[in-house]
């Protein structure tokens, strides 16, 4: 029997991450990275933000928001290093760094979101 490739699964995560990143990240970055710090808009208070994050739906939302875009990055960045910089000989190291990073980020997100009280 031929060895099964895990490429379809990785591609699925890449694609799902691409959708999440495209639909959600611009507004998140615009608000939290620019509009609130620069005072264009008045950001939510600590208490109201905490109340939001306590809700189970928000926690699931934030887990998806942190995790899937990291898998999107892992897949794209890996092939950018292959094609762009042509460093195919570091194949395994790059894979561990990219997908390992995404798995690590997902675990950190899950851990932090479970600890919010």
């Amino acid at each position, binding site marked *: 029997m031929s060895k099964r490739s895990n490429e379809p699964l990785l591609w699925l995560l890449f694609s799902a991450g691409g959708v999440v990143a*495209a639909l959600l990240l611009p507004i998140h*970055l615009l608000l939290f990275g620019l509009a*609130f710090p620069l005072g264009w808009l008045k*950001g939510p208070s600590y208490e109201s933000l905490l109340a939001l994050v306590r809700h189970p739906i928000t926690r699931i939302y934030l887990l998806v928001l942190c995790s899937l875009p990291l898998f999107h990055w892992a897949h794209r960045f890996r092939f950018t290093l292959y094609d762009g910089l042509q460093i195919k000989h570091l194949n395994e190291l790059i894979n561990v760094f990219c997908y390992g990073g995404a798995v690590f980020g997902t675990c950190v997100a899950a851990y932090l979101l479970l*600890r919010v009280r």
Partner: protein
Amino acid sequence: MINPTEYLPKTYRVRMSTYWWLARWPYLKFILREGSSVFVAWAAVITLLAIRALQRGPAAYAQFEAWLRTPVLLTINGISFFFVLFHAVTWFNLAPKAMVIRLGKKRLPNAVVSAPNYVAWLIISAALTWVLLRG
């Protein structure tokens, strides 16, 4: 007798420069699009840091907010915003290429296939802004 070609590659290979993607605008655009993934990852990381600060308490969160107001972070986030925007637009415009829809014999125009993405994007962004500004 020593064969002078013994250790040479059997097939002819064109050597490609490491900087091939600087040669033409479409190549550079491709690499910028792929490079946007780094800023996508950054946006995820900054969200993680926000959750960590939130979980640690009001003082930690105030410190995190002050950090976001520093010029370095504002610059990074400004650049990141443009790259994430670039990712979103290129991603939405990819939809008609990945999904060819035909009505009868005619192919649906690209704009019609990617338009729902933009509509969803606007609605979601407005909804998120509303949720965050309410409190």
